[in-house]
């Protein structure tokens, strides 16, 4: 049931990356490296720049300074898969789980070719792998939050992506289903793919990631979970954010 071959040797490297969003510097001097076969959690409060970071890696936002390098990743060839936030998906569009997973074949098929037997087999195999074979004919709106995320992971697999970016993947997903999603992502990581998952709420699953990137407009810490979650980093992440808001508020009053 192993999907098609993919390059195992992808590597991601960001050097002093600064990105502007809505006229403000949303990210400053972000540097980190991710090796093949890494499951990385990107944590930080709302507005910390997690989505901006993913958009910059995915090429949706221009990088103001610095450099994003994806070694051996053919972006246009579908090697980079992006699972968007819930809000940016058009849920009114009536597609089944199978339809969505088939979308992953688009970039492999090119313009006018229709999916063939191999494509359909791959779609079946990937749905089976994420445990949704029985739900293949269900509309996306009929699936739970966790099941929807797993459909998107299956789509990334049919796309034969070597880098997966999941933005706010835990929002609307209950604790049990979060666990299930992380388990699926661990098997995906075991095949040498890079998986980055952004979340604003620190769950007790943080320990299940290989690496954690703590982000609050800059990198507060990056490394294995047991090393990065120190009280200083936590204050920088959530405390510092709170302090900054308070200062802004006082500034407003003085004026």
């Amino acid at each position, binding site marked *: 049931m192993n999907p098609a071959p993919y390059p195992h040797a992808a590597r991601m490297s960001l050097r002093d990356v600064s990105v502007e969003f809505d006229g403000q510097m949303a990210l400053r001097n972000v540097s980190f490296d991710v090796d093949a076969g890494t499951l990385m959690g990107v944590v930080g409060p709302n507005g910390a720049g997690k989505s901006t970071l993913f958009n910059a890696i995915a090429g949706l936002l221009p990088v103001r300074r610095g450099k994003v390098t994806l070694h051996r990743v053919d972006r246009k060839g579908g090697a980079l898969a992006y699972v968007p936030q819930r809000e940016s998906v*058009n849920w009114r569009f*009536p597609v089944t789980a199978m339809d969505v997973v088939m979308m992953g074949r*688009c970039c492999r098929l090119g313009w006018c070719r229709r999916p063939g037997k191999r494509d359909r087999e791959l779609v079946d195999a990937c749905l089976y792998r994420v445990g949704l074979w029985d739900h293949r004919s269900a509309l996306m709106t009929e699936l739970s939050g966790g099941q929807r995320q797993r459909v998107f992971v299956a789509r990334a697999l049919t796309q034969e992506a070597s880098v997966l970016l999941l933005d706010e993947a835990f929002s609307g997903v209950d604790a049990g289903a979060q666990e299930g999603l992380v388990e699926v992502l661990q098997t995906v990581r075991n095949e040498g793919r890079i998986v980055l998952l952004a979340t604003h709420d620190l769950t007790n699953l943080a320990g299940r990631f290989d690496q954690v990137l703590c982000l609050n407009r800059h990198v507060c810490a990056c490394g294995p979970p047991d090393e990065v979650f120190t009280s200083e980093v936590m204050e920088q992440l959530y405390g510092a954010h709170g302090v900054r808001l308070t200062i802004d508020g006082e500034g407003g009053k003085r004026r």
Partner: protein
Amino acid sequence: MIEFFVAPLEYGFMVRALIGSVLVGVMCPLVGAYVVTRNLAFMGDALAHAVLPGMVLGFIVGINPAIAAVPTGVAVAVLVRIVSRRAGFSTDTSIGILFAAMFALGLAMLSLSTTIRVDMEDLLLGQLLAISPTDIYVSLGITVMVILGLFALHHWLLFASFDPVGSQVVGARANIVDYVLLVMLALVIVIGIQAAGVILVMAMLVTPAATAYLLVRRFVSMMMAAAAIGTAAAVTGLYISYHFNLPPGPAMTLVASGIFALAISFKRRVPA
């Protein structure tokens, strides 16, 4: 009973009108399925009004107004996206600006031109019964182009419609696909205007597809059901207009709306 269906077809204009209504009944709802699921109804309405200057120009220089309307529709569809991007407005705002501006331009051209006498009512309400063989050929040409486009880009259209951000990451194609969809929308509106006019073309674009959305689950089935409902409404409307001496555009619209009213009384769809 057979007489009811066959008698009108003794007239050449009714045969052409029947072909025209089938083309409208199939093509508008096929693209309309995307209009309904991607919230493009206002865009459709705007395109229908915005092609007016193209049609008037067609009358002035003596080319088929349907052919002249195509580039105007396409230009407006593209302009809407460019204006939205440059100004940072929502698409609705730029549609509002361009729609009124283009329609006003058409009206101004119409009243300034002394050489043509076009019945405003024909433009607004359609002239299915006066459809010429050239109009039919233009509609057939557009039908072939749009069906090929829908077929060839089917998977990309699904991807870009369901997950606009995810599809953009995979390639620039998603952007191109959005433009192509707008071009196809402009094209079927041109067919629709001939039959139902600037105002009622919306009934063919939105109503059958909205009815299908209530009745079936998957998008592909929705397209098929929408085309079937649209054809039924268009052809029934044409016969009603012949036998009860009504203009065909409103007759078609009323039939399509009646089918929708029936569907919504018996079915409901859980909001997404």
